[in-house]
C-alpha cells in the first residue's frame, strides 16, 4: 500500500476536526433547531399499559381534526412496518405506526396531536381518553416462552420470533472433558440515550414535489426505503435528510413509527410538522437494547484449554420486529459470534428471539457482542478459576495465535489479521498486574477489596453481503459508493451516503481524499446524510463507515487522480507516465501544474484539454468493497482494576487500560475518542444502566434521576495502547472501530469484581453490577455458608 504517512494531514495524522468550530459556537443545526414557516408540533398519546385491547378512543369535540389515529392513517393507505427476516421459521410482526386496536408495550404511540406548540399539543394529548381492556403481560422473556404464556401476537403459536441452532453435538466432549463450568448470565435491558433524542421535521416541498423528511437518523436511504413501503409512495417522491445528529449508537438506525406519522401528517395537512423525542419518551418507549440471558457451559482440559462451549441464549426482542434490522439480528448474531476470539473445536448454541410486551429491540453499539463478550469472558475466568491459573494465562492458552492468521473459526468467521495474545500480554504489563496482586494481598486500609479483570474480544465490522443476505432482512450492504468532484476553484466535494453523527467523517474522509489528491483539508467538503445529494448507502452502523465509504472515497479519488495526471501531463506537454501527482500539483520534473489550474482548464478553458480526455471529467462516482466479504476484525484486550466496597456494594474503577488493534488509524485522535466514548457506555452497561420493569410491564425509570448514565466521576481516565496490524483486505489497512470500546467493559469489570470478591466466595454474573446486586450476592453467599 505504501501510502500511509503520519505527518501532514493525510491518513494517520492527528488533525483537528473540521466540524468543531460550528459546534463549539452553538451553530450546529440539529432537527430541533429547524423551524419552518407555519410549522406545527406533534405530541403522541402513548399507551400507559403494556398489553391491552383498545376499546375506544374519545377525542374531545374541540380537538377533532387535530388528533389522528390509525384509523385515519389506514384510511389514507398507510401500511404497518414489516421487517421480515428470510431465516426459516421467522414469525412476522406487523407494527402499525399508531396502535391498531391493540397495544403491546408501554409507550406505544396510540394517537398523534397537532398544535402550534409542543405544550399545546401535549395539552390536547392529555385530553384524549383511550379505553384499554388490559391483557395479561409478558414482562420477562423466560416466562414468555413457557407454555400458556399470554401471546403478544394472537395468531402466533408462541412468543418466539425465531429459534436458531448453530454448531453440532458436543455430547462426547461433555462426557469426557476434565473441566466443566456452567453459568447463568444476564444483561439488563438498556436505553441507548444519545444526548439528542430522535426528531423529525416533515414537509411537502411543492416545488420539487417531494416529501422532505429531515430526521435525526444514521441511515437516511434506508429510512426512505421504509417510508416508501409504508406510505406507498415512490422513493423518488421522498427525500430524507439527516442534519447534525446528536449521537446515535443504534437508536437512530431504524425506521420509526413517529417518522411515518410525521410524514403522513405533513402531507395530509400540507403543513410542516415537527416531533422531537423528549427524554421521558426515550427512556420509556425506547428502552430497547441488550437484554440477553445465557445458560452456558464451558468444557476445558486441565490447563484450561477450551474443548467446547455449549449455550442456550435468549434475547428479549420486545413486541415488534424493527426495520431494517429485524427482531432476530441480535440473537442470530449471538449464535455466530459467541466463540469470540478463541480457537476451539466444539460448539453448540441455540438462540431464541423472544417476543415480549416491551419496546422492540434495536442493535446498540457493539450489537450482540457486548452480551456475548460478557458471557464468554466470564467463562474464561471461570475456567481459569477451575484449573487454578491466572485468567490472562488461560486467555493466552486459547486465543487464536498470530501464526494462524488469517483464521476461520468454529462458526466460519474469517479473522483477517492481528496478534490477539500480544494484546493480552501488553494489557497485563500496562495495568501492572503484579502491583495490584501485591496490594490485594496486603489489603486496603478502608476495607475495600481490590480486583483486576480482563476481557478480550474481536469484532467483525464492515459486514459484507453474504451474512446480511443470509439473514434476509430488508437491507443488504453491497458496494459502497462515493462521489468526488473537483470544484472549478480546485477544491473537492465528497458525497457519501453514510451519515456522521459524532464520528468526525467531515474530517477523516477529507484526510483520506487528501492522502490521494493532496488537496488541503480546508478545501475539501463532505456532503453526507441526504438522499437527495448522496449515493445510496445502508448508512452508518456496524463500524463500517471508514472501511466502506472511506474505501469508496479513496477509490473515487484515485480515479480523479489519474484523470488529473493525464490532463496535467497534457498541459505540460509531458507523457502521462512522466508525471506524478504530489502536494496538490501534477509535476513533471521541475514543471508543475496545480489542481486548481487543471480544474480551471476543465471548467473554463476546455479548449486546452487533450482530445482523448476522459469525458467523465473531474467528477467520479466509485464503488467499493473490501477484499474479504467478512469485513475486518479489530480486537482488543481491556484490563481494569477496581475497588469494591463490600459494605455498600459500590465499585470504583482505579485504572483502565485498552490495548487494541484498529489496523491503520486514519486519525488517531478520532480513534481514541471513539474508544473513550465506547468505554464510557460500557461502564454504564457494567455498573449503572438498567431499565427495570415490573410484572405488569411498567418501566420503572423515566428520568435521568432513575436511569443513570455515567458522568465525569464515574468514567475512568482510560489509557489506550495501540497495536497497528493493517487489515490485508481494506484501503490503507483500516479496520472498523466505532463500536469496540463498548464491547468489553462489562466483561472486564465483572471479572474484576469477581476477582475482588473471591475472598468472600462470591460471584456476580448479571449486569449491571449495582450495589444492590453485589450486596445481594454477598448476602446470599453468607446465608448459604
Amino acid at each position, binding site marked *: 500500500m505504501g501510502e500511509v504517512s503520519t505527518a501532514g494531514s493525510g491518513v494517520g495524522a492527528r488533525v483537528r*476536526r473540521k466540524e*468543531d468550530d460550528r459546534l463549539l459556537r452553538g451553530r450546529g443545526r440539529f432537527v*430541533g433547531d429547524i423551524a419552518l414557516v407555519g410549522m406545527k408540533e406533534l405530541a403522541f398519546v402513548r399507551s400507559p399499559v403494556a398489553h391491552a385491547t383498545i376499546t375506544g378512543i374519545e377525542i374531545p369535540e374541540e380537538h377533532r381534526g387535530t388528533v389522528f389515529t390509525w384509523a385515519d392513517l389506514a384510511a389514507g393507505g398507510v401500511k404497518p412496518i414489516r421487517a421480515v427476516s428470510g431465516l426459516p421459521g421467522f414469525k412476522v410482526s406487523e407494527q402499525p405506526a399508531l396502535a391498531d386496536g391493540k397495544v403491546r408495550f408501554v409507550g406505544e404511540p396510540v394517537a398523534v396531536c397537532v398544535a402550534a406548540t409542543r405544550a399545546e399539543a401535549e395539552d390536547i394529548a392529555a385530553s384524549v381518553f383511550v379505553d384499554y381492556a388490559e391483557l395479561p403481560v409478558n414482562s420477562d422473556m423466560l416466562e414468555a416462552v413457557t407454555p400458556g404464556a399470554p401471546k403478544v401476537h394472537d395468531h402466533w403459536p408462541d412468543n418466539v420470533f425465531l429459534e436458531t441452532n448453530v454448531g453440532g453435538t458436543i455430547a462426547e466432549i461433555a462426557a469426557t472433558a476434565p473441566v466443566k463450568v456452567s453459568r447463568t448470565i444476564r444483561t439488563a435491558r438498556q436505553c441507548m440515550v444519545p*444526548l439528542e433524542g430522535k426528531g423529525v421535521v416533515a414537509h411537502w416541498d411543492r416545488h420539487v414535489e417531494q416529501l422532505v423528511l429531515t430526521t435525526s437518523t444514521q441511515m437516511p436511504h434506508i429510512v426512505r426505503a421504509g417510508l416508501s413501503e409504508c406510505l406507498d409512495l415512490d422513493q423518488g417522491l421522498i427525500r430524507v435528510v439527516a442534519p447534525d445528529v446528536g449521537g446515535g449508537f443504534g437508536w437512530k438506525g431504524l425506521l420509526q413509527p413517529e417518522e411515518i406519522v410525521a410524514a403522513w401528517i405533513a402531507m395530509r395537512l400540507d403543513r410542516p410538522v415537527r416531533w422531537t423525542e423528549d427524554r421521558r419518551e426515550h427512556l420509556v418507549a425506547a428502552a430497547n437494547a441488550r437484554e440477553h440471558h445465557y445458560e452456558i457451559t464451558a468444557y476445558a482440559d486441565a490447563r484450561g484449554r477450551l474443548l467446547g462451549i455449549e449455550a442456550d441464549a435468549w434475547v428479549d426482542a420486545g413486541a415488534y420486529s424493527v426495520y431494517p434490522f429485524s427482531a432476530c439480528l441480535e440473537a442470530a448474531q449471538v449464535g455466530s459470534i459467541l466463540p469470540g476470539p478463541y480457537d476451539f473445536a466444539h460448539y453448540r448454541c441455540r438462540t431464541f428471539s423472544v417476543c415480549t410486551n416491551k419496546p422492540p429491540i434495536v442493535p446498540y453499539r457493539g450489537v450482540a457482542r457486548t452480551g456475548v463478550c460478557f458471557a464468554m469472558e466470564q467463562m474464561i475466568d471461570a475456567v481459569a478459576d477451575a484449573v487454578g491459573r491466572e485468567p490472562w494465562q488461560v486467555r493466552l492458552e486459547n486465543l487464536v495465535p498470530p501464526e494462524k492468521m488469517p483464521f476461520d473459526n468454529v462458526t466460519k468467521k474469517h479473522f483477517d489479521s492481528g496478534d490477539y495474545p500480544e494484546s493480552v500480554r501488553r494489557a497485563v504489563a500496562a495495568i501492572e498486574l503484579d502491583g495490584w496482586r501485591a496490594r490485594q494481598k496486603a489489603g486496603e486500609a478502608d476495607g475495600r477489596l481490590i480486583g483486576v479483570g480482563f476481557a478480550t474480544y474481536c469484532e467483525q465490522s464492515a459486514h459484507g453481503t453474504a451474512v446480511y443476505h443470509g439473514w434476509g432482512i430488508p437491507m443488504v450492504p453491497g458496494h459502497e459508493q462515493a462521489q468526488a468532484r473537483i470544484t472549478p476553484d480546485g477544491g473537492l466535494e465528497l458525497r457519501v451516503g453514510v451519515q456522521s453523527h459524532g464520528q468526525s467523517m467531515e474530517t477523516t474522509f477529507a484526510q483520506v481524499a487528501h492522502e490521494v489528491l493532496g488537496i488541503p483539508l480546508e478545501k475539501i467538503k463532505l456532503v453526507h446524510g441526504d438522499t437527495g445529494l448522496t449515493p445510496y448507502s445502508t448508512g452508518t452502523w456496524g463500524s463500517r463507515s471508514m472501511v466502506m465509504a472511506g474505501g469508496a472515497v479513496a477509490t473515487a479519488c484515485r480515479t480523479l487522480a489519474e484523470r488529473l495526471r493525464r490532463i496535467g501531463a497534457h498541459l505540460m506537454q509531458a507523457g502521462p507516465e512522466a508525471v506524478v501527482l504530489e502536494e496538490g500539483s501534477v509535476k513533471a520534473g521541475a514543471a508543475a501544474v496545480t489542481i486548481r489550474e487543471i480544474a480551471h482548464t476543465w471548467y473554463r478553458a476546455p479548449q486546452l484539454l487533450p482530445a482523448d480526455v476522459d469525458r467523465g471529467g473531474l467528477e467520479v462516482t466509485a464503488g467499493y468493497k473490501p477484499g474479504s466479504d467478512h469485513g475486518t476484525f479489530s480486537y482488543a484486550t481491556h484490563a481494569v482494576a477496581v475497588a469494591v466496597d463490600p459494605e455498600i456494594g459500590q465499585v470504583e474503577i482505579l485504572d483502565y487500560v485498552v490495548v487494541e488493534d484498529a489496523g491503520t488509524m486514519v486519525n488517531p485522535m478520532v480513534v481514541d475518542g471513539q474508544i*473513550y466514548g465506547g468505554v464510557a457506555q460500557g461502564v454504564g452497561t457494567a455498573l449503572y444502566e438498567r431499565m427495570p420493569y415490573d410484572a405488569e410491564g411498567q418501566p420503572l425509570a423515566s428520568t435521568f434521576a432513575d436511569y443513570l448514565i455515567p*458522568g465525569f466521576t464515574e468514567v475512568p481516565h*482510560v489509557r489506550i495502547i495501540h497495536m497497528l496490524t493493517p487489515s490485508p483486505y481494506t484501503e490503507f489497512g483500516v479496520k472498523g472501530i466505532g463500536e469496540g470500546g463498548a464491547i468489553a467493559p462489562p466483561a472486564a469489570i465483572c471479572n474484576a469484581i469477581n476477582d475482588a470478591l473471591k475472598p468472600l466466595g462470591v460471584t456476580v454474573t448479571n449486569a449491571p453490577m449495582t450495589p444492590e446486586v453485589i450486596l445481594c450476592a454477598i448476602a446470599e453467599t453468607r446465608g448459604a455458608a
Partner: protein
Amino acid sequence: MSTHAKTISLTINGTRVEASVPPRQHLGDFLRERELLTGTHLGCEHGVCGACTILIDGEPARSCITFAVACDGRSVTTVEGLDDDPVAAELREAFSAEHGLQCGFCTPGMLVAARDVVLRRPDADNPAIRTAMSGNLCRCTGYVGIVNAIRRVIDARNTNAG
C-alpha cells in the same frame, strides 16, 4: 396560546429584549423557539443532563427548569454570546485540540460549565475538574478529552498568571 402571557424585559447576549411569554415556557424553549438561539440544547428537561446550561447574571443555570418569566430584568448569556469571551475562546481552542466533542450536542452546556470551573476553580486537579463538571453529561466522548481540555486551559492561565 396561554391566557396568562406576561411581558418581560431582559438582556440576552448583551441586547435588550422585550417579550410576551407564557409563564409555562421554560427559558430554554424561550431562547430556542423565540430568540432562535438554538445553540442551547435540551437533553432532558428535568435538570440532570446540563445540555441546556446558560448564564443568568453571569452564573451557570439550567435553562430547562428556569422559567423565562422568572428572568425579567436579568441578563442571560448563551453559547452564542460567548463568541468574544476570552475564557470561552481558550476553551474552544482546547476542546478542539483535545477532541472534547464528538456529536457536539452536549458541547454548549459543557463550555458554559467549563468556563465556570476555569474561573472559580483555578486550583482544580483532574479529580476536582471531574467533580465540578459532574452536572453535565456527554454520551460520546467518555469525558477524557473534555477533562484534558479544561486542564490545558487552567494550566495555561496559571502559567501566564505566574
